[in-house]
């Protein structure tokens, strides 16, 4: 009961903070901005943006402007008006499809390989240097290499997702597998379970929470990477949409994109959180 009260109060406080933040933003954007410079020749002023015509610079958009633009975008999210002009829903779908492809590919490679590494100390020691060198490489550094060798921009971005999301899953799987309790393995051995059966019946359930944690980290990384990758190669996707609105210097659209990227990332994380709870075990 008391926890529900705390939750309600926390939500109220969150809303109050948001309202105060947006209010301050709106107020400062309204009062700032226009420079109030000398009157310009009307013909000249007509050729400029609204703020520049008053002698200032185009300012930061106000929350009310952003909300209006958001409504405009969300009202019709799935229109297609040519290869370079498609609705925000379609862009998000493209990005999600790429993330799903790269992430599932990475899981298919990382989990079996992680098992091998976790079960064999020799393999673990041998592969460790490679993993440690490749793991911290930024996704964008892979892009030129991928474009050059794969020769397809869409597959290149999937590859970049793959290469960036493979490491947390690999390391977590290996760690989870190697830290399976010795007693349980010994029990399995006394029951004369084969290697495969041990892996499937004992190690996998034991390591599952750790593996899921790795996957949860990976999906977060994959979603981070897709935006950067799409900004670089262009074509479709929410990252490209951000680039395109940057190209038009439309900050309202960029704020909206940040909001949407954050919400989708949150949903992806929650999805894996639910899965993780399903395989969790307590001693």
């Amino acid at each position, binding site marked *: 009961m008391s926890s529900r009260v705390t939750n309600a109060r926390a939500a109220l406080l969150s809303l109050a903070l948001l309202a105060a933040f947006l209010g301050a933003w709106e107020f400062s954007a309204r009062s700032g901005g226009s420079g109030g410079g000398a009157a*310009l*020749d009307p*013909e*000249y002023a*007509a*050729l*400029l*943006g609204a*703020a*520049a015509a008053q*002698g*200032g*610079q*185009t300012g930061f958009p106000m929350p009310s402007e952003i909300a209006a633009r958001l409504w405009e975008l969300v009202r019709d999210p799935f229109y297609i*008006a*040519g*290869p*370079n*002009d498609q609705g925000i829903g379609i862009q998000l779908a493209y990005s999600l499809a790429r993330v799903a492809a790269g992430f599932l590919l990475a899981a298919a490679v990382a989990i079996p390989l992680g098992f091998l590494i976790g079960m064999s100390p020799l393999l673990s020691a041998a592969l460790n240097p490679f993993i440690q060198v490749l793991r911290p490489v930024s996704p964008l550094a892979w892009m*030129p290499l991928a*474009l*050059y060798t794969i*020769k*397809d*921009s869409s597959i290149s971005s999937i590859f970049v997702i793959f290469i960036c999301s493979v490491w947390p899953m690999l390391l977590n799987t290996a760690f989870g597998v190697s830290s399976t309790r010795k007693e349980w393995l010994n029990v399995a051995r006394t029951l004369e379970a084969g290697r495969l059966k041990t892996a499937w019946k004992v190690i996998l359930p034991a390591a599952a929470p750790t593996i899921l944690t790795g996957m949860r980290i990976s999906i977060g990384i994959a979603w981070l990477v897709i935006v950067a990758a799409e*900004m*670089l*190669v*262009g*074509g479709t996707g929410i990252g*490209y949409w951000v*680039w*395109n609105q*940057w*190209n*038009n*210097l439309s900050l309202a659209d960029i704020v909206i994109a940040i909001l949407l990227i954050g919400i989708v990332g949150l949903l992806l994380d929650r999805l894996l959180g639910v899965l993780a709870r399903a395989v969790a075990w307590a001693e």
Partner: protein
Amino acid sequence: MARRFANPFDADASLCGCGRTHVPGLACEDLPNAPAQDGTHEYGEIAEQAVLRALYPDDATRRGMLRAVGAGTLFAAINAFFPLGAAREALAQAPGTIEKRDLKIGFIPITCATPIIMAHPMGFYQRHGLNVEVIRTAGWAVIRDRAIAREYDAAHMLSPMPLAMSLGAGVAQPIPFAVAAIENTNGQAITLANKHREKRNPRDWKGFRFAVPFDYSMHNYLLRHYLAEHGIDPDRDVQIRSVPPPEMVANLRADNIDGYLGPDPFNQRAVFDGVGFIHILTKELWDGHPCCAFAVPRSMITDTPNTFHALLRAIVEATGYSQNAANRREVAAAISGQNYLNQPQTVVEQVLTGTFADGLGRVQRVPDRIGFDPFPWHSMAMWIMTQMRRWGQLNRDVDYRQVAEQVFLATDAANAMRALGQAVPATTVQSFTLMGRTFDPANPAPWTERGIRTS
């Protein structure tokens, strides 16, 4: 459809080298003629012209014949032994043999790409039997890699890029690319941040950070030449970075750079947003300089020649249409939308019409701020290569004239221009003047020196 070529069966018209017939003594302009009636349009006219030219190479003879017997009789007489009607139709059906109709063309969202872009909404590709998708691309390196990977059948490139790629500069190995047509001439500018309003003399620019769109760009070479002519060493005294055009204004606003020699609409956009001012148009440095190119991989020309020629004709026709000052507002409206440039229409219009705010409180009127001329002068390519040599991008001597002839397809462009009734220059090299210095194609060597010594 208006008749594109003068009627060769007109006794008073003479077949001129420009590909049109005209009345002797008149300059090249359209003559009022009845359009072809059998639906073969300009292809039919080309066929008629070709046959008549072959039969009567001498203009005077042909005119004499026409006067003596009349057009109808002559047509009937020729038709008796040469199926003129069939030839008209055969040539009109030339697009039917196009090997590949569905094409993808990459472009960077700048006004240099105007002909490539506007040919899509305004139907120039369709008219030549092609189904083209124009795809906006995020940067020059990406467009190059996607063109190499053949994801694009053709691409909008900076005119030095196909030269560099063919020479193996800036790529892993030489990849034969060709400039089928130049997109635009002029149309660039040096934009400076507002805080430098008082520093209009380049000699005061030591320590400035400049952006250019790409290392292999006219922008880079023009900026370097401009600085060098004012006693600034472009490698030591200033920093020149390669920044994708759309990111230039954002960097200028963030005070990350002091200025840029960039493509429009981003010079005009800086003014529109009150971030910078236009210091000088590149037209003032070299009037008529090439900027962007319509580039195709060599293999496309050999693998799908009919597609290539249809595409080239579409581009050349679109270029001619864009050049006409009367069409500029219409073109601006067609390309400024979300699907293409994604810019405020007034910004694009100011660039194309040349009536623009310069950021210093004046409205300037420069109708030839940007021009559209498809002819790929070999002398342009030669100058570009001297600059690659001059600034250390090319570390060996090459035969400039020979490479220019291989990469800049002046003959193909000239044929397309002639077929569409545009005036074609008689030569492919000419000398020109940059900031008071003459570039002589017969003697390009002085331009490879860091400090030029021309007489």
